[in-house]
């Protein structure tokens, strides 16, 4: 598989020929209105079922796909740099979906990983990538990542994000980010080597939100490898993109890259409205990211702006049905993220993980990147134990029914939903782990043991 340069050029041309809109008009008259129209046209109003956070209705999921497909054609992607919308007609959108791989390998040697399409309730093993690009200090980076790479359930690495580069503040959109791209690659490789897992695939580049990190670290000598590693293209929320994202695509092309992670967010409570509009938006934006960025691994999860996470009922419902819609009606490798808000050394973080990961596994998601420890709010607030738990749950849940996942959701959401706004930070890596021995504190270990037992009692078969 290679990245199709002709498709890139077509998309670039569309950024200069598509319809022109002012920002406000696009958001309200194009995005919001078309999502509302799609919800109405396909009879999706008031279908969000808070009592059943994991959807079990295949017909409903399929209607969400149809609504999302139509919304994708009517909305397109707005390029911020040109104020023009990249549009796809029905044939172009479908062609982009059909061209996406059903499976692919990343990594090297005995650490190669198979990313494959999954359907809801599929017993094919999903891929667990850790951690998200949560900021850490330089002294924490290596021991933390080594510890994460040692977790057997972890298949690939993405974050964390560096706060400084050789002691200097890492500033977004600046040459510091360019340096950070290669620096992160070096650190990740060293951590992987210390963990004895050389060849483990990586997603490029956790520390850099703009294209500068990718330019500095991907496809350069010693950097992220175009044949073994994914290039991360994270577009702007709610149907916007930019030259920054497109630069990453062209960089992948010129460096011989093969595999693209194309993703973004939809904001529940924002322009997409409530859970129904958000689920339609998630489907539509996923399909557009495949078409525009030739995504190998693609997904656009919802984010509830009420508490900046997605482990509450309405967000979990939207997360599940949107993923089911795409995984039932395409053969793409679906990617998603469960966004917790509680931090390490809290049971709440583990409960949020249990609910979200079972939903994602049962809804046909092929690859999850996690864990969003402490909502990503605090530097150094992530630890290996919740990442181990996330992988264990995700893989144990491969093959469970949506009914079972829903039962788990209804059992464990009540344990934390009153705390979603309060959001306990928990403890930093240095507080809940011995950084020298890479062992958790007895307190954190006990919490994990207790919640793990609860998960087993809820019917998950841990190895």
């Amino acid at each position: 598989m290679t990245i199709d340069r002709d498709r890139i050029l077509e998309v670039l041309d569309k950024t200069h020929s598509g319809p022109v809109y002012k920002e406000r008009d696009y958001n309200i008259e194009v995005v919001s209105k078309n999502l509302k129209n799609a919800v109405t046209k396909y009879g999706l109003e008031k279908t969000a079922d808070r009592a059943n956070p994991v959807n079990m209705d295949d017909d409903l999921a399929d209607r969400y796909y149809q609504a999302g497909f139509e919304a994708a054609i009517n909305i397109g992607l707005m390029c911020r740099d040109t104020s023009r919308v990249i549009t796809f007609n029905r044939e172009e959108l479908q062609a982009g979906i059909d061209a996406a791989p059903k499976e692919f390998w990343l990594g090297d040697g005995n650490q190669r990983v198979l990313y494959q399409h999954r359907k809801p309730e599929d017993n094919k093993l999903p891929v667990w990538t850790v951690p998200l690009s949560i900021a850490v200090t330089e002294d924490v980076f290596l021991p933390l990542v080594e510890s994460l790479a040692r977790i057997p359930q972890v298949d690939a690495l993405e974050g964390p994000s560096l706060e400084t580069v050789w002691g200097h503040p890492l500033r977004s959109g600046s040459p510091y980010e360019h340096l950070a791209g290669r620096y992160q690659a070096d650190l990740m490789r060293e951590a992987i080597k210390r963990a004895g897992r050389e060849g483990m695939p990586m997603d490029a580049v956790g520390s850099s939100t703009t294209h500068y990190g990718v330019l500095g670290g991907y496809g350069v000598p010693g950097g992220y490898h175009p044949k073994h590693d994914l290039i991360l293209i994270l577009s702007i929320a709610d149907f916007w993109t930019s030259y920054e994202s497109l630069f990453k695509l062209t960089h992948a092309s010129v460096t011989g890259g093969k595999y693209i992670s194309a993703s973004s967010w939809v904001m529940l409570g924002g322009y997409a409205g409530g859970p129904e509009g958000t689920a339609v938006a998630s489907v539509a934006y996923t399909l557009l990211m495949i078409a525009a960025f030739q995504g190998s691994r693609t997904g656009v999860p919802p984010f509830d702006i009420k508490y900046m996470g997605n482990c509450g009922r309405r967000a979990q419902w939207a997360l599940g049905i949107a993923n089911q819609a795409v995984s039932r009606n395409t053969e793409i490798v679906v990617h998603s993220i469960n966004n917790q808000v509680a931090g390490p050394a809290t049971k709440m973080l583990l409960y949020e993980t249990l609910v979200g990961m079972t939903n994602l596994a049962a809804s046909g998601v092929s690859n999850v990147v996690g864990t969003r420890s402490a909502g990503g709010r605090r530097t150094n607030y992530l630890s290996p134990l919740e990442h181990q738990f996330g992988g264990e749950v995700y893989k144990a849940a491969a093959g469970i029914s949506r009914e079972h996942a829903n039962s788990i959701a209804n059992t464990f959401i009540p344990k934390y939903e009153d705390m979603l706004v309060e959001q306990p930070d928990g403890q930093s890596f240095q507080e809940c782990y011995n950084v020298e021995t890479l062992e958790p504190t007895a307190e954190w270990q006990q919490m994990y043991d207790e919640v793990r037992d609860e998960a087993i009692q809820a019917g998950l078969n841990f190895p």
Partner: protein
Amino acid sequence: MTKQYFKRLSDAMITGDEEEAEACVNDAIGAGVDPIMLINKGIQPGMDELGEKFETGEVFLVELILAGDAAKIALNVILPHLSDEDSRSAIKGTVVTATMFGDNHDIGKNLVSAMLSTYGFNVVDAGISAPVREIIEKAESVGADIIAASTLITTSFPYQRQIIRFLNDSGLREKYFVIVGGGPVTPAWTEEIGADGYGRDANDAVTLCQHLMEGDSLPGSLSEPVIIGALGKQLIGR
């Protein structure tokens, strides 16, 4: 009869109907209704109700934006009929909102902008990935009272600090309150960089701006920043 104008105007806020808002205000003023009462009993109750509906998830960002637009249209008609003193109290202040350089997230900024508009602030949006200098130039050009700087990524933190430094180095610190917010932003960071206030969410931003505008302190002179809506608890063992 007067009450009907208030209800009509309040409803126009809730539905975001600019034409109806303008027509209602014109009708009411033509009928001799006290213009300041149109704000207090027409616009504000509608905005308050909308704010409650947003909290309960009945309405979303678009409705807030449309309400803010309707309020702006209504105020444009009302203001020339107010005394100078009433005019000054009708507009609570001018706020420049921005997402920091290197950060393309806009939802937080847009939410804060919409909420501030519904509560009577004049909001000027400096956009996303906004360079520090451009934010300050915007504040200068519109005569802002407050600069509201948000970011969702830690690598854009340094730019929030740079706003304060730039203002200090330019001799402009006393002209603008600087408030900060966004997912990873904390009260501790707010204090470290010398910002005037922190709000955890859009509602908090409104409370914060009201507090700063109604107080007697000058920007940059507070002994500690005003913190609204901070998360205080660290729960272990939950």
